[in-house]
């Protein structure tokens, strides 16, 4: 298994090796040691490889991921899995701001807490956070699912479009145009499937509350000016 010790080799070497992976290769498992908060670890992968990062990372870890499964055995800085297209990113620790921002697909699992703006402008990504999330999460989210086992901070789902939000704990406040919605069988099914994919077996879909867009801000209407 190729192993990259970032205390010894430059980050560029790691990312280049990951970008060089071609179809049919046998080298599918990579290990990254000593990231020590480095930025842009394992970004831009476009192959179904497995990457285990042992330690804490900085900004934009696993950004733009397609197909790869990246597990960070530590915490990550701002922008983890930003603009992910597909694949899976698992963070064993906490995540800083805007985790999974603008993600188009794939699954992001954060086993600790995520801070503010988790899933901001998400466009199809599924995000599961075992802990709590910070303020303004799922701001302007357009598609995908955000599942939170803990609590959510202020202004959840502010100016939300069509993403589905499920929170098991308390929500400090809802943002403009975000409302509590009825949990229908299809939502319970979706949630059960997502929890399963995230490896969560001890939590029932019925324990969550669903939130979504009231669709009042879709088109500009002068009567809604105060809500913008």
């Amino acid at each position, binding site marked *: 298994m190729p192993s990259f010790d970032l205390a010894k080799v430059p980050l560029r070497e790691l990312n280049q090796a990951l970008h060089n992976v071609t179809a049919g290769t046998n080298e599918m498992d990579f290990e990254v040691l000593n990231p020590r908060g480095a930025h842009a670890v394992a970004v831009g992968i476009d192959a179904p490889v497995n990457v285990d990062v042992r330690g*804490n990372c900085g900004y934009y870890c696993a950004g733009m991921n397609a197909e790869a499964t990246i597990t960070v055995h530590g*915490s990550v800085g701002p922008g983890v899995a930003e603009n992910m297209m597909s694949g899976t990113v698992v963070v064993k620790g906490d995540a800083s701001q805007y985790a999974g921002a603008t993600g188009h697909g794939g699954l992001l699992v954060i086993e600790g807490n995520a801070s503010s703006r988790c899933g901001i402008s998400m466009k199809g990504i599924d995000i599961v956070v075992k802990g709590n999330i910070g303020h303004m999460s799922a701001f302007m989210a357009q598609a995908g699912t955000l599942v939170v086992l803990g609590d959510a901070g202020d202004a959840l789902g502010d100016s939300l479009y069509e993403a589905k939000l499920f929170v098991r704990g308390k929500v400090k406040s809802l943002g403009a145009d975000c409302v509590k919605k009825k949990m229908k069988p299809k939502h319970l099914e979706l949630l059960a499937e997502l929890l399963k994919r995230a490896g969560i077996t001890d939590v029932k879909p019925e324990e969550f509350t669903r939130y979504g867009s009231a669709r009042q801000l879709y088109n500009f209407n002068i009567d809604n000016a105060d809500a913008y």
Partner: protein
Amino acid sequence: MCGIVGLFLKDKALEPRLGALLSDMLITMTDRGPDSAGIAIYGPSAKGAGKITVQSADPKSDFKGLGAALSKKIGTEVSVDVRATHAVISLAVDKLDAARDALTELRPGITVMGRGESVEIFKEVGLPKDVAERFGIGKMSGTHGIGHTRMATESAVTTFGAHPFSTGPDQCLVHNGSLSNHNNLRRELIKAGLRFETENDTEVAAAYLSHKLAEGQNLGHALESGLSDLDGFYTFVVGTKSGFGVLRDPIACKPAVMAETDEYVAFGSEYRALVGLPGIENARVWEPEPATVYFWEH
């Protein structure tokens, strides 16, 4: 962008390493701000003793014979420790104000960077590595300190635009962000009798806190008041003679990460700044909440 760091030691055994640890933290943050850098160190203080850190663009002539001239002028013994463009003047604490006035008269080219019983402030245009080396920060010991590497947004790239800003005895502040109501607030603070050296927005925040402290609030309360009076983006790290505080604005888009062990409390703009600290692997690491005051005191 700016990079800020802070280190508050709980374990006395680490005190001789404060300057070295803090400079390493700041050097790691160099790419967040290459314009200027500065460090405030709270060092050992003796009862009744005070110090003033001064800066001069012409240290050769300004610092020559400064000790003797100042001593004669204010009628007390002073010693002057020159370090590149800065000098630390040691004297009786009750002579600090007299010395400050006398300095203006004796050496008009000199700027007071900080004063008090414990704090010494060194800041210059340049990279953190060069600034730390120039002033021998790595060899300094102390109880706590803060540092800043600047990407200038609101005012000029000069020594005086560098952080930390100190506007009261043993107080200083570093800032990542920008304030939007600093001009108006500066006018109000000037009316209240505060003095400003620069056009910098951060100096206004520092002066605001000094003003609140002078009104009798403790640092925790002063920071709470700041949440409603300071408009803009900010992550502040502040130091007082015995305390260390952190505050982020309610939007909290400027990054911040903290770590605490039995030996210290540390702050960094990024986790990278903390990785060289002893025992960081087992520290409690968290991101400070928006609009929440964090404060430690010896």
